[in-house]
């Protein structure tokens, strides 16, 4: 199964890093969509079939916590695998995201870490990897 992936981060550089790392992970990827805040991310979720979302916490307009909260209130996305990718270190904030059913990856990260977490949260087969 190829994973259609949504990457939500206000930094275009960070989105590029995440996408580059995804490609290096060797996992089977489908379409990759980018959004620069939670509001844009939710719009893409409404329009496209997404299998996995990687989202930042601190973003203007709508942050990652609000986006994730709204996703979990919607039947369509309540079980969508979400990985929060952030340099956030405040335990309280991370705990909130975990309670909303996300998995947390701390920046910086390696393709191996990203791959391990994606395999764990999506159940995608590892057989396509290098």
């Amino acid at each position, binding site marked *: 199964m190829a994973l259609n992936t949504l990457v939500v981060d206000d930094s275009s*550089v*960070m989105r590029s890093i995440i996408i580059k790392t995804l490609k290096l992970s060797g996992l089977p990827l489908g379409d990759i969509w980018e959004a620069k805040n939670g509001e844009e991310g939710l719009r893409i979720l409404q329009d496209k079939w997404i299998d996995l979302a990687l989202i930042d916490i601190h973003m203007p307009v709508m942050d990652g916590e609000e986006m994730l909260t709204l996703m979990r209130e919607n039947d369509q996305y309540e079980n969508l695998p979400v990985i929060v990718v*952030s*340099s956030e*270190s405040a335990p*309280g904030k991370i705990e909130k995201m975990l309670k909303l059913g996300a998995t947390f990856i*701390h920046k910086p990260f390696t393709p191996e870490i990203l791959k391990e977490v994606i395999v764990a949260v999506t159940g995608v087969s590892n057989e396509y990897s290098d």
Partner: protein
Amino acid sequence: MPKKNLPLEAAAEVKYRSDDFTGKLLIETRGGLFSAIATNILSIDDPSTKQKKDALGEIANIICGNVVPSLGEGGREYKIEPPRSLNKDDLLKEEWREEPIAGITLNFNDGRVDIKLFVDGYSAAKEKKE
């Protein structure tokens, strides 16, 4: 060998605050590393100035997010502001005459990166103690 006397190319800062501390992390590049960082992160040969600034800011953001939680006691909540690109005039301002609480210099090829961590009030407190 340390590469002294290289002119400053670019700098970025990330400010942070908690209930007990405020401060900033500063990153400066010299000797071609401003461009090299963006080229490597984004995998592009000729990054624009904006891309270079964004890449440097993102590096500062990641370092700050990882370093600041080690200040003081564990478990504190920190707020980290978005990275800001600095020009030479910014660096000449009074606030930058503070002494960093910690710093590191990394030499790569012909260039150099200096990373400095500031805690507001540190210089004054140190002077008083002496």
